[in-house]
């Protein structure tokens, strides 16, 4: 067997930057593939990914579902006889993949390096500031108005046609940020799927699953598995992360529901029933869900924060911008969100307004950079898990299905 190896030097450099600098220590003993609780018998990892990375075989790695099936349990790194930290290397490959599949490339590159942190904060901050400026709402309201309207008059308070002006501004900002992200991540995940199919030698199948079949057989079981954290719980060395990640995930789902409800109530129903505008009562069931979720978000992130610091202190993980940026962003969203609410409740207008501004910045960052940061794992890992099921299914494996 011969193999024409054409290493991509820049890829190796990128690996090093993203925390995979230990990869060259690997001597291919394959301990990692055996101690990994998530590695399968037919497609074990991360030993193979380690040698691909050493050889700079970028093409093999960006279409390798194993890279995303890895949950960075850390068992591989704990048992690695060479300190090659396969867990960190696979994390670095994921970081590289998000950048590689990210669109637009400029933004993807920007979001991959800690050096750009000021710019990454400045982009949404400046945009929101300008919007605030041109909205004409840039003044602190009276305490009475604040109690009554909360941050509902942040961007001014006259009606623009039938839509509340504030709602319109928020929608323009957040929906466009989310729109770019959704388009980008869709483009990315489609490219990833193609690459995975190509690398796995999944040719043109005579039978392809229809979209409902695909959802039912591959996507939905993966989502269920993710929600239940089944694989995450297999981890031994870093098992504690489940305690942080699970509340965080539920908080995200609850907040997505609350936000959608709030948007519908304020943006749609509010056109007809103006009383739906303004802050909700603390005893409104939706508000209770929102507040519980907000606390879960901060607590979950806090646990992950502590966990990661501990792992780094113990030498089990490298300190990377890629890992920390997402923790910081989510923590930022949670803390400014709860802060803004508390300041509203105690009636501190100016501090409240500034905190709310920061909250908008944090939320926009989370939306805007989702496809390029660790946040992208919610889409890419789901796709890889669906692909793993697809690869082992009769659509691919059944010899009758081959031309």
């Amino acid at each position, binding site marked *: 067997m011969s193999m024409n190896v054409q290493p991509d030097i820049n890829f190796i450099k990128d690996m090093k930057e993203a925390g995979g600098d230990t990869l060259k220590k690997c001597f*291919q*003993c*394959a*301990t990692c593939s*055996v*101690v990994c609780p998530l*590695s*399968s018998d037919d497609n074990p990892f991360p030993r193979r990914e380690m040698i691909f990375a050493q050889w700079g075989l970028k093409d093999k790695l960006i279409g390798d579902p194993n890279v995303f099936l890895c949950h960075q349990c850390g068992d591989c790194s704990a*048992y690695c*006889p060479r300190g090659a930290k396969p867990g960190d290397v696979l994390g670095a490959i994921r970081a590289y993949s998000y950048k590689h599949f990210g669109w637009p490339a400029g933004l993807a590159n920007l979001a991959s390096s800690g050096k750009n942190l000021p710019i990454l904060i400045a982009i949404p901050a400046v945009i929101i500031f300008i919007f605030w400026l041109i909205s004409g709402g840039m003044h602190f309201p009276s305490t009475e108005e604040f109690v009554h309207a909360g941050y509902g008059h942040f961007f001014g308070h006259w009606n623009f046609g039938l839509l509340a002006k504030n709602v319109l501004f928020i929608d323009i900002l957040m929906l466009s940020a989310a729109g770019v992200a959704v388009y980008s991540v869709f483009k990315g995940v489609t490219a990833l799927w193609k690459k995975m199919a190509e690398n796995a030698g999944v040719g043109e199948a005579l039978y392809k699953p229809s979209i409902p079949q695909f959802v039912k057989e591959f996507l939905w079981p993966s989502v269920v598995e993710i929600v239940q954290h089944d694989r995450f719980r297999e981890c031994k060395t870093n098992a504690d992360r489940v305690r942080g990640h699970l509340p965080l995930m539920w908080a995200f789902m609850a907040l997505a529901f609350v936000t959608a409800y709030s948007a519908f109530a304020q943006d749609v129903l509010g056109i007809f029933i103006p009383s739906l505008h303004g802050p909700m009562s603390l005893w409104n069931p939706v508000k209770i869900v929102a507040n519980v979720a907000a606390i879960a978000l901060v607590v979950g992130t806090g646990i992950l924060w502590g966990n990661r610091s501990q792992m780094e202190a113990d030498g089990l993980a490298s300190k990377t911008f890629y890992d920390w940026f997402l923790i910081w962003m989510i923590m930022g969203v949670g803390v400014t969100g709860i802060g803004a609410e508390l300041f509203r409740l105690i009636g501190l207008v100016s501090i409240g307004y500034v905190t709310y501004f920061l909250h908008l910045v944090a939320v926009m960052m989370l939306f805007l950079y989702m496809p390029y940061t660790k946040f992208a794992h919610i889409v890419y890992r789901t796709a890889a898990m669906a692909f793993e099921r697809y690869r082992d299914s009769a659509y691919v494996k059944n010899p009758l299905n081959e031309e």
Partner: protein
Amino acid sequence: MSDTAGNGAVLVVGGGISGLTAALEAAEVGNDVYIIDKNPYFGGRVAQLNQYFPKLCPPTCGLEINFKRVKDNRKVRTYTMTTVTSVSGGPGNYEVTLETAPRYVNSNCTACGDCAEVCTDEIDNAFNFGMNKTKAIYLPHEMAFPRRFVLDKDACSADCLEAIKGACKYNAIDTEMQAKTFTVNVGSIVWATGWDPYDAGKLDNLKPESSPAIITNMMMERMAADNGPTGGKILRPGDDKEIESIAFVQCAGSRDENHLEFCSYICCMATFKQMTYVRERYPEAKIYVFYIDLRTPGKYEKFREKLMNDENSEFIKGKVADIIAEDDGGVTMVAENAVTGAKVHQKVDMCVLATGMQPALGDQGKALGVNMDGNGFVVSEPDKGMIAAGCAKSAADVYTSAQSATAAALKAIQIGR
């Protein structure tokens, strides 16, 4: 025999093949030599082997001639059950304090064995890694030198001690014997402290405690030896099954920064050698060797070639990282075959962990002022008259150890001339 010596005396710490060689080389050119060993016998790890490289001789072959040379040489003074407690002075003029633990058997002993006959208490046989029992008063092994029994007093009841004393016709049993401390003045010290098999219990992912079918390569040596616990038969501990399949787990604790960072040098060769033990007894047995790389330095390459051509043997490139104990007494090896890229689950009757060499001197060496590297090997300082030999210096085979011991002797005799 006097405990004083002339100028240029040499202390050799450790009486294995390296220590014996260094002691004899120094003594045979006229230097006074003290040689000590913490065991009740000389011969060290080589004495425990079934066969040793390069010619696959039984240990009697190399050790007996050395014992005879020691006995015939008036320049060599031997002390068993003896350790170093402190070192002071400097090159050419070291004052070393030694302590001899009580053997409870004096030099009247003729090794007739009458005491063991009447002894009712038993202890684990350390020489055989606890695979069988021995009487609490025992000859460490058949060719033990000095040929004198040793008593594990704490393991004996008062009645048993009385019986032992009564059985001895030579008044050799002295249950009141005390530890004895004494000093020697020497010009230089040769550290030939050797090695211990790496503690397999530390390999937690391999779970060596989970099944008696998981043994170490040194246990295998004892099993294969005619004077071992099974009389030379290779049987699965626990149920004494004659094995039909066996796996060797290479680098069990070696080349691993969580255990021994270095390559222990001998384990690949030991495995090839032990494959021949298996083959001689079980021509049809399946043999599986799991390895990262096979390291067979120099002319040993030929030996590797021969054994890799064995039809019933399979070599799998991948380190065993999990062992599962099975209900039928066997064990399943789990590894990833790095050549095929798939995981291997191989069930075998018995498996051998090719554990490496842990330098035996340990932290105690540092306390005595010995220069040691990060792995615990002794770094020679010839100018200071502190010289390492054999496996105390680096992981090595017998042949290389003897070479380094001769070199150490040459350096040692140059101090204080």
